[in-house]
């Protein structure tokens, strides 16, 4: 008898929670952009134009030219969005997987540097047919990423070394090793500045979109996202990662190999970060400069947070992030608003997103409004 009312109520609760989950990103995005617009109103003389530039600046433009017919312009800019989104997707996945096991691995930066380095070394110095060398380059990147990711995991399970500290320290080691090798052994004497020689053309990833560096990596991306999702949801290791992340005490008493799960999850993340490194070396730059953009790993962290560590949501979060960033560059160039405003907007979106209580509050407000209407209707009748 008790279950008669409990069951429908539980079902309703489940539906509500699912709805709130789906609404999370759109609501946070809208709220963040709304606040951003208010800030622009305060700092700009033409806030509306700046805001529209931010929203549409990254898009290619359909252009009618006499004699040429319809033409797409600004493809380079749109290419930059995609290039960026690929890097961020890989890094987002790299952070999301250890996060699902509740391992706060901040080592994506170091893994990315080492991955790029390993792939470049193999590509530059290993002779052989291109498909063999390219496969081996990728393998080298994955292996170095896995090792550099699993190492702090092993340090944690073996010696209780906090993974936040060890990954940050290992980042420094990796970055400095990278700089040392690029400025010494790998340096191209004819380069003019400190940089490695160009990769052989056959080893550069094939370009899909003219005038851009959008390569076949774009095609591999859905596969990698899907693989990550499969890993988490359909394999025993993924199950272990999820259980350890949800409740380590429960995992222990059920007999799950908790320690192995910890370092494997961090190693798996390392593989994806290293692939991001290879995307940068073999897709975007075709050679390695002594300094790669620093802090990419932290952007991966933000993307993972935006996607709430759900692999299938990571590419969309990355795309949004990259889109806003490119739009911000356009806005800075053509209006009086600086791109720092976008950093504020991105931060606000993340704040709105991680504010756990906000969504239930919104849902609650809606429910109250509905309840009032129902009660009012009843009263009238």
């Amino acid at each position, binding site marked *: 008898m*008790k*279950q008669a*009312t*409990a*069951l429908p*109520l*539980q*079902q*309703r*609760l*489940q539906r509500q*929670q699912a709805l709130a989950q789906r609404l999370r990103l759109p609501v946070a995005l809208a709220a963040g952009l709304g606040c951003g617009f208010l800030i622009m109103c305060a700092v700009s003389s033409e806030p509306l134009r700046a805001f529209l530039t931010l929203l549409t600046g990254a898009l290619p433009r359909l252009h009618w030219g006499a004699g040429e017919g319809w033409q797409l312009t600004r493809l380079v800019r749109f290419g930059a969005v995609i290039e960026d989104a690929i890097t961020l997707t890989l890094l987002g996945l790299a952070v999301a997987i250890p996060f699902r096991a509740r391992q706060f691995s901040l080592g994506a930066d170091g893994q990315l540097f080492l991955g790029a380095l390993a792939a470049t070394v193999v590509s530059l110095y290993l002779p052989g047919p291109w498909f063999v060398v390219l496969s081996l380059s990728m393998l080298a990147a994955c292996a170095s990423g896995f090792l550099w990711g699993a190492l702090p995991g092993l340090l944690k399970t073996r010696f209780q070394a906090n993974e936040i500290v060890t990954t940050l320290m290992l980042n420094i080691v990796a970055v400095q090793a990278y700089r040392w090798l690029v400025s010494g052994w790998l340096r191209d004497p004819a380069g003019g500045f400190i940089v490695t020689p160009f990769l052989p053309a056959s080893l550069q990833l094939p370009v899909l979109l003219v005038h851009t560096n959008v390569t076949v990596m774009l095609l591999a991306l859905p596969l990698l996202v899907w693989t990550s999702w499969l890993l988490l*949801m*359909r*394999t*025993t*290791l*993924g*199950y272990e990662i*999820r*259980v350890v992340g*949800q*409740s380590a*005490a*429960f*995992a*222990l*008493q*059920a*007999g*799950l*190999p908790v320690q192995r799960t910890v370092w494997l999850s961090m190693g798996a993340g390392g593989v994806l970060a290293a692939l991001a490194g290879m995307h940068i070396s073999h897709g975007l730059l075709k050679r390695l400069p002594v300094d790669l953009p620093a802090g990419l790993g932290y952007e991966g962290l933000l993307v993972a947070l935006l996607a709430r560590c759900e692999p299938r949501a990571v590419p969309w979060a990355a795309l949004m992030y990259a889109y806003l960033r490119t739009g911000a560059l356009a806005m800075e160039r053509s209006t009086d608003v600086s791109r720092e405003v976008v950093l504020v907007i991105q931060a606000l979106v993340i704040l709105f997103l991680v504010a756990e209580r906000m969504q*239930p509050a919104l849902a*609650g407000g809606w*429910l*109250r409004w509905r*309840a*009032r209407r129902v*009660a*009012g209707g*009843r*009263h009238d009748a």
Partner: protein
Amino acid sequence: MSTPAMPQAGTALLELRQVSKLYPNGTLANDDVSLSIRAGEIHAIVGENGAGKSTVMKMLYGLEQPSCGSLWLDGQARVLADPAQAIAAGIGLVPQHLHLLPSFTVTDNIVLGAEPRRGWRIDRKTALRRVQSLVQQFGLEVEPLARVRDLPVGVQQRVGILKALYRGARVLLLDEPTAVLSVQEAESLFRVLRSMVAQGLTVVLISHKLKEIRDVADRFTVLRKGRVSGSGRVSDFSEAELGSMIVSKAPPPIPARTRQRATQPLVEIRDLQAHHADGRLAMQSLSLDIAAGEILGIAGVEGNGQDVLARVLLGLQPASGGQGRLQGRRFTGLSVREVRACGVGYIPEDRMRDGVAAEMSIADNLIAVSYHQAPLARRGWLDSAAIGRTAATLMQHCGVAAPSSATLMGALSGGNMQKLVLGREVAAGPRLLIASQPTRGVDIGAARALHGQLLALCEGGAAILLISADLDELLVLSDRVAVMAEGALVAHFDAAGLSADVLGPYLTGAQRQQNATALLDNAVTFSGVPA
């Protein structure tokens, strides 16, 4: 302050109509609750801890919203979105913990948040005058300029009541007001409440003390497990009748045991001991046997080493000496997974921490001990279809109703969760089940189902180590009972005819049997003679 309008006595002032409250964590605190509070009465809401009284109070005060059903005030459906709306509607709450500022005066505390102003300054004279007039009107003896920290709790409570009255309350909700009061203070509180009702106010009183209700309340509503189990005029019912509405009926006894216990031990544990990480002895050298089809109960006040015994046996904590054998095979000193592979099952004491992952689905919880084996997984790949089938079968077998096996575990009641925990362990086909506090915090119906599951497992030839703080449970289920105190086994009895009185002195450590071990043949019968 507005003077409370004199309402017509006897009409329903504040009502809940078919209200249910499901918290987001899945707890169904109120289920189809209807109650009606009449103007000018003292209405008691009665029930045991966890019966849903506080939730009712929170909904009346706008702190929580009903999941379904409606709230009616003065014959109109109302939504009280927050306490501010409740206060505006004339409902005041005197919480159990008063939230007063100790260094402020009584007057300052009372007007806090609704101060009379003169310009941008607080008008202290008006505040004092209003408080004094309230004090006189209701006979609440309080010195308006005393500091709250100098006042006894009973007087502080009057400050809380004055605070609600100052805001214009005509319905006063009091949450367990006598919990912190002495008998004299309680009597004086009741006098105050009577005088307030005489002046046209309405009082709602939460309590679980029968005597109080008979002393002061006009009418009552009894809650039991979130449902209304009775209501009416207090004078129409005897204390015994009220009592039977509050407490659920005692469960019928468990049917007599029919199982056969083997004469050879299935589980042999010899000289097992364990130390804490800091080197202190956690469990003294301990030996026990359990035969197939037998339940060995471990009694003891919590924290006397029972949890250590369970954790060491499962491999969660290393033993520092001794060993355990199951069917002649050593199972101590292995990893948890290896121990489980030997045929050991475990129901952890702390269900929410160790027994389930509340934020994961029921299916994910049910496969936790067998997900790595066929048929649930092959070569590292999970078989979703097999998992779904297994989960559905287990849910049906355990009699647990939920929307689907994808429902979050945390949405189930404690009893249903525990049924699934036990079901998961039983499904793994254990030869030894270590059940730690298996029915803690579950309702009586679920406890009976759990006992049935345990007995069925036992009749199937498994050995059960039942660790429980509930002596009735131990005495009903066990074949033999061992007592642990201060990390050592101090007594061992045959359960036939054993009573809680006999166990008492051993539980407290006042008495112990010399060199007690719990071997199959050395149980002391209740009369004190070895069998």
